[in-house]
């Protein structure tokens, strides 16, 4: 089926544009030695299939295919990779978990393993092995990875969402340093608008950029959708404060953000229409690649999200965990591959090939040259460390994922910013929806 053609295509592509560091017999030798020493011995005749999210960066996928090929050569275990857009991995994995057939491994979005924790293989030994070897896991990765006392997945990487801004315009507005507090950020936004170089956050149904900023805003002011026991606590003075803050910020944005989707701010930033927004590193990478946009690439930088009154970072970045299904016939092979992916000799070139789109969640990889080669990438290095989980204070799982997918918080903010509802009304609508999701 398509799997073969896709795979053939990818292989063809890799052969032509091989990523330097990965090639050569050195990798193979290392892989063989690794296979000898690794605590997981794949079953005889084992074959694995994996469904992963579709790449943003071709080079990343190429590097991943290389990595799997090395694994095959070292262990004799074939790895079949198929790809789906990241939003579609979840339904497929759910069906596979229900029916007990399908790919052995799934590599999807943050809460995926928590939709069916009892169907995920216990990979505590792999997580412990990697954690010990590579400086420990970042806190949010532990939250995403564990269900009870067991690790049910291996967090592979994050995809960071940071503030993007134009340097010149910010300097002119009197901010030679990007504001690191939310109040200062509001002043910054107002000053930028006043000198006719506004920016904006998506307030339309934008899964990544829209949710990214509204959760930051809610959390930074001390608001929360649910508490530790998943009780809905959205109806609070802090939420009201967050709404007021957002409305002021919205007033300082460029008109039209209510219709923005995930792509809108990219094109507006690259078109020189906006001067600050929230995004992954894609705007910067696109600007670097396009010679006509060179002055934008030179004149832009990234920053962490400003810290609000709560006094600690309240950022939300996407996490990509890989899980193995309990129905797999080759559990040892699955574990071996998971560990293999995150070993330094594989992971370093792989994360480097992603050019900053992806951030590691094992502390030792802070030293990867991808973060130092270009200082403008540096904020993305911290994405995993600064990220909270999709559930906020509450559990990571289906409910949190549903609340995000249904844009409950985003619509609450949009309702108030656009003047469709007052503070009470916007919160009441969100509260009602959340109560249904968290019942």
């Amino acid at each position, binding site marked *: 089926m398509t799997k073969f053609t896709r795979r053939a295509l990818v292989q063809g592509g890799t052969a032509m544009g091989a990523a330097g560091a990965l090639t050569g017999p050195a990798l193979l030798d290392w892989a063989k030695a690794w296979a000898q020493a690794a605590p997981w011995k794949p079953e005889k005749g084992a074959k694995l299939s994996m469904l992963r999210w579709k790449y943003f960066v071709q080079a990343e996928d190429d590097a991943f295919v290389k990595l799997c090929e090395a694994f095959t050569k070292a262990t004799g275990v074939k790895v079949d990779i198929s790809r789906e857009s990241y939003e579609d991995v*979840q*339904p497929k*994995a*759910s*069906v596979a*978990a*229900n029916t007990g057939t399908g790919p052995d491994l799934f590599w999807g979005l943050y809460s995926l393993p928590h*939709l069916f924790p009892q169907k995920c293989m216990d990979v505590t030994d792999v997580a412990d092995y990697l954690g010990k070897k590579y400086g420990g896991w970042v806190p949010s990765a532990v939250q995403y990875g564990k269900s009870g006392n067991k690790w049910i997945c291996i967090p592979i990487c994050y995809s960071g969402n940071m503030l993007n801004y134009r340097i010149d315009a910010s300097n002119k507005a009197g901010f030679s340093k990007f504001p690191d507090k939310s109040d200062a950020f509001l002043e910054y936004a107002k000053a930028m608008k006043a000198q006719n170089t506004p920016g904006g956050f998506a*307030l*339309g*149904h934008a899964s990544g950029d829209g949710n990214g900023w509204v959760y930051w805003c809610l959390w930074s002011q001390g608001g929360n959708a649910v508490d530790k026991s998943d009780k809905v606590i959205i109806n609070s003075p802090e939420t009201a404060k967050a709404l007021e803050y957002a409305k002021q910020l919205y007033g300082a944005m*460029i*008109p*039209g*953000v*209510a*219709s*923005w*989707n995930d792509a*809108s701010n990219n*094109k*507006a930033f690259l*078109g020189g*229409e*906006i001067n600050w927004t929230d995004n992954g590193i894609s705007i910067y990478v696109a600007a670097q690649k396009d010679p006509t946009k060179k002055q934008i690439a030179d004149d832009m930088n990234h920053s962490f999200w400003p810290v609000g009154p709560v006094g600690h970072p309240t950022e939300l970045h996407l996490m990509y965990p890989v899980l193995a299904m309990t129905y797999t016939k080759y559990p040892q092979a699955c574990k071996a591959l998971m560990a293999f992916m995150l070993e330094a000799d594989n992971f370093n070139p792989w994360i480097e090939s992603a050019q900053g789109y992806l951030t590691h969640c094992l502390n030792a990889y802070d030293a990867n040259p991808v973060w130092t080669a270009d200082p403008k990438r540096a904020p993305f290095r911290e994405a995993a460390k600064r990220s909270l989980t999709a559930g906020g204070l509450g559990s990571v799982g*289906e409910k949190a994922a*549903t609340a995000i*997918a*249904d844009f409950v918080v985003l*619509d609450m903010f*949009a*309702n108030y910013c*656009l003047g*469709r509802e007052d503070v009470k009304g916007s919160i009441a*609508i969100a509260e*009602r929806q959340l109560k*249904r999701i968290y019942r």
Partner: protein
Amino acid sequence: MRCDPRPRFLLAENNRGPASAVHRFALHRVRDTESGMTDLALDSIKPAPRAATAWDRLKTNRNWLGAWFMLPAAAFLILFLAYPLGLGVWLSFTDARLGRGGEFVGFENYEYLWDDSTFWLSVFNTLLYTGVASTIKFAVGLYLALLLNERLPFKAIIRAVVLIPFIVPTVLSAIAFWWLFDPQFSIISWSLKKMHLITTNIDFLGEVWNARWSVIFANVWRGVPFVAITLLAGLQTVSPSLYEAATIDGATSWQRFRYITYPLLTPIIAVVMTFSVLFTFTDFQLIWVMTRGGPVNATHLMATFSYQRAIMSGYLGEGAAISTAMIPFLLFAILVSWFGLQRRKWQQGESND
């Protein structure tokens, strides 16, 4: 009922030779359809045939055969239309989530939706969208049809050009409109600014009412050719002699339209508008590409809202309830035009088919 004379002829032949398959078939048919008289005649010709069993009768029954011919089509409809529809209705009574079955919860989904302001907003949007867009499409379509029915230079080319919006895949035209209505890069805003008519960009899709009118405009642009071309086909069936007679009687052009064109066109108008309303009511692609139901659900139609809840959020049961809630509206639209058609038949005195 009269009988086809051919079998009798065949019967006579049958007397002299061995009965071929065709003959036998014909013979059975006669037996089947005719009264005892034929049977008598048969008996006298063919020596002692065995008594016709129920199976014999069934084998040669035309209705039975017809049922078999109908079966593939029926199976197709049941499998791909009736079953999914039934399943959808069933799902709306369960708490099914995407990727896993649910349990029967009665009217729980409907009760939740009843108090859900977003649901009612989507109903309002759908009715507004359907009502306004269909009316404009009808008015503009009829006007275009009348225009194209006149003697025009390059008539064929103009008619072909009118069809273009209908030919372009909806998603492509939606993307084109999405760019036209972009808050930053809209060519409309740009042109108006260059003409010094406005100073800031128009926020087409970011303001509630702007967004509604924008998607309605896109829908009208897309739907007009269908109405116009179909009505044009209807116009061309109107006999010119009626117009000649009316002209001789001194009718004004408005009278000609009112008393000739309009009555003769009504059956087609009813059909076209039924389709137009159904298509508009269930529209999905335009909205999904242009606004995803935003800003703040102000352009969510029932179809897009159902998709949002069922597929994006995974609440399959609730999504099914939303789409099931569309059925009464659609049935109403169909019934209106159906009874309308009936009445017109009666009006025009066409009692025989």
